[in-house]
């Protein structure tokens, strides 16, 4: 009889604590805003997991605390507890039921993954390049951006490449993350559903400035997106034409800030991951092999396209990714900018 009373109290307490734990966790709003179609199944599964967590937490902690209160040794009490060695049927039960839960959860998980991976053959394709320490987004219309613009409610397929080490593309509001592996094209599909500003942050440690490897993302309407793409493509074409004919340090400075040069090369003479650009033009650059080279157009162009060809003394080779994607005109702009840094 006393056993029945214990178990009734326990069952009630476990039910109450489960529900309260779940409601409490739910009220905390555990996940950030969901801004992509892929977030929906993930959040659904996460919610199921939180329910399981709440239940199993109560299932263990309630009887544990209950035992500590009810079965504690009272003052003056002597002797041992009841001699109960175990129960095979109980052990089989609490092996078998979790096993069933695991198998079902695995099935749900696999199905959930399939929903997240759903492919839209009409997806917008954008090339993403991760490097130490920044992101670059290359649009098939022939221009490059430092901000990732995406049209809302349309699947984007990002073809991701890394020019140096492992990186990982993660936007918390999109939920899904995926690594960038040097030498490979990794596919990342996302369908933004909420217009707004987000940030992609590198989630795989990639060296000193890993924390700062972030870029803005703008999810905009399809009309705005089309307009933006057309505008960027036109600007890029015009700039390329103008630069070849007439290089401009202003455009060079903009490129310095946006293409990622700034992360490693200072323009005030301070030492960074790479050598400073201040006073670079026309100087004799000491190389790792002991020789020197004149910093002229040929040297700078080569160092941008193939950075390890001539390594500056005191700096490690392979530290800089190749910027071979820059057009001749853009490099001419950069050189004009470097010339101004006396």
């Amino acid at each position, binding site marked *: 009889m006393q056993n029945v009373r214990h178990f009734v109290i326990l069952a009630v307490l476990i039910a109450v604590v489960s529900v309260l734990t779940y409601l409490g966790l739910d009220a905390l709003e555990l996940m950030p805003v969901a801004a992509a179609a892929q977030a929906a199944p993930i959040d659904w599964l996460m919610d199921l997991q939180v329910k399981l967590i709440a239940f199993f937490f109560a299932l263990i902690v309630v009887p544990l605390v209950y035992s500590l209160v009810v079965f504690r040794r009272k003052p003056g009490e002597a002797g041992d507890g009841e001699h109960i060695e175990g129960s095979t049927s109980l052990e089989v039960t609490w092996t078998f039921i979790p096993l069933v839960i695991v198998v079902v959860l695995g099935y749900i998980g696999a199905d959930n993954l399939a929903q997240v991976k759903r492919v839209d053959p009409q997806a917008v394709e954008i090339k993403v390049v991760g490097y130490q320490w920044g992101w670059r987004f290359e649009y098939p219309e022939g221009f490059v951006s430092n901000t990732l613009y995406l049209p809302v409610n349309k699947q984007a397929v990002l073809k991701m490449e890394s020019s140096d080490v*492992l990186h990982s593309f993660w936007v918390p509001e999109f939920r899904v993350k995926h*690594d960038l592996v040097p030498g490979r094209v990794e596919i990342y599909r996302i369908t933004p559903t909420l217009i707004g500003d987000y940030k992609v942050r590198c989630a795989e440690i990639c060296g000193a400035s890993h924390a700062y490897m972030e870029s803005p993302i703008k999810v905009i309407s399809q009309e705005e997106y089309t307009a933006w793409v057309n505008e960027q493509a036109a600007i890029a074409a015009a700039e390329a034409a103008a630069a070849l004919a007439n290089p401009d340090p202003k455009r060079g400075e903009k490129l310095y800030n946006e293409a990622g040069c700034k992360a490693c090369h200072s323009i005030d003479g301070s030492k960074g991951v790479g050598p400073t650009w201040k006073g670079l033009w026309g100087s004799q650059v000491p190389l790792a092999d002991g020789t020197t080279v004149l910093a002229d157009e040929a040297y700078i162009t080569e160092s941008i396209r193939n950075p390890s060809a001539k390594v500056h003394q005191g700096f490690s080779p392979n530290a800089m990714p190749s910027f071979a994607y820059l057009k001749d005109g853009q490099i001419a702009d950069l050189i004009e900018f470097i010339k101004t840094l006396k």
Partner: protein
Amino acid sequence: MSHASTSSSTGSFNRALLFFLIGTLLGLGLGIGLHAAVSGGFNATYLKDIPSWMLGLLVGTLGFFYGLLGYYGIVRGLVFQVIGTLAGILLVTAIRAAMGLPFFDPAKFGFHEGAWVFGALVGAVSFLAGVGALTDWWKWAKGESTPDHHEDVPGWRKYFGVSLDHKVIGIQYTVTSLLLLSVGGLFALLFRVELAESGLQFLTVLTPDQTAALNLYNSLMSLHGIVMIISILLGIAGVINYLVPLLIGAADMAFPRLNAFSFWVAVPAAVILLGSLGLGGFDTGWTGYAPLATRAPIGIQMFYLGVWVAGWSSILGALNLIATVLRMRARGMTAFRMPILVWASVATSIISLTATQLIGLSFQMSMFERLFGMPFFNVAKGGNPILFQHLFWFYSHPAVYVFVLPGLGVISELLPVFARKPLFGYRWVALSSIGIALVGFLVWAHHMFTSGMNEYLRVPFMYSTLLVAVPTGVKFFSWVATLWKGKIEAPTPMLFVLGGIVVFLLGGLSGPPNATVSTDLHLHDTYFIVGHFHSTMFGGYVFPFFAAIYYWFPKATGKRLDETLGKWHFWLMTPAFFVLTLFMMRVGLLGMRRRIADYDPMLGFDPWHLAMTIAAFLIALSVLVFFYNMVKTLRSPVTETGNVWNSRSPEWQVPSPMPAHNYEKEFEVVGEPYDYGLPGSVYVKM
């Protein structure tokens, strides 16, 4: 301890502190002087030279032990290590010079990378020769015989030199583990101060510029991970070494010299590992993923080599333990009459014996890629960076079961004593350890769900990972059922056992969301994982480890740790840990990436991080209370030599501390280990 020896040890301790100070200043001065000589002038920022400070600490530590011991044991080992390292460096440098290769590299602290690696390896072997861990084998090789048992030097000095007694070795392991726990904890406190607020404000004070501060953050974070892992490996080796022979009625481990070797090889490994901070550190995290690792400062080579050398300790220790349990059990101790901690130790040793090679191999391959240009992980030359991750996790996932299984064994071992009831479902609990160990071998790729590994393989790895929940669940249910209808008492060891159960539950329950692939795509590499992992480590190792120390301290020393201070320790650490781990999970879900030195203030994480930093300091304070408790108890004249906890286990049937060769007469097992509440039953007949 008599009054006279107390005052003489106080005297040598004061001398040791003085020598530590002098040594540190000498080493620091030498380092800064060298830097100034090489650069041709002194600059105030040299005072922030981390390599010089590390040199200072090395010389200071040497001075400390010299002041304490004179030229004996560990002092000889360290001196040999320093000389061996220099000899190795100079040998490679001389060979390179003779071959006309470049041998001086100012970017790599003067010498070629190969010289540093070879030097460190020679240093490790020299340490073992110097400390005397190879002496008997060397004599045998020469045809000389040595006594089977060496008498230990009397008093506390025996702990600082080679001893073949498993109890001495167990304590050596445990104390070394606590030291590394403090070092790893100190690293964590340093970077937690930096994280208390967004922006960089603390580490920039210690370093000359922002890049150096970021690199220092990465080095501290990486070293926190690996130093804690080595600390845990030594801690469980300490518990296992001290207890398993006592629990099974053996006079010692099967191979006492190998046992001593396994401990002593970990000491130069720890020196090399910490030395990485003096050689530029490394920025890869303890995972050391290629290709970032191929570009890291040479500190990463010391990290690789330190882990590689420490791996020998794990593999050989596990071999020894399995041989001991298989061959040296007391009469009547059948498999299902072994204490549950012995089962857990065997399960953990199976993993250590067979998986440690894989982390050694992956690190060795990365090391060779840097030294000899073998492009194992370099895509441009046909290598594959994902291969590193597979090899690395094939050990490093099972390794977490190495860390927790002995702790879960301690929980299962102590619960019956304090509930005064048999362990519920003993056979199921025993076999669940083996089950976890075996399933643990099949789950490694769940660390790689976002890595670009084969897409379809992710599903079988999800199933195998979820499967671990089943044997783990058996343990939890059995623990709760053990408490049911007991007569529960809760002195300090039991508090840590109960805390361990709840904290490990938190770690266990936060596991399945990482196992199901789609949710892991969000959670991977965030603070959620960091929180989950710290819960499993605290619940599965830290709490049970402290429980074990409080519980068996009287066995080892004949003195019982102070209950009031023990309760302070517990009630400071537990709530602080809950704040730390739950807040980690909270910010992780909301977008806090792991391994970042700084975070976007727009995310609004500042108050959460401040709370975590305060919690981390409270945990550190609680550990200081624990250290104070140990010192105070050891100095107190009050003794406790009897069966303090009223246990049935054989080691408590003889007076404490345990005599040198354990039991005077072999005992016989005549009953079940945990038959509390069965009148007239005993486990062993002495």
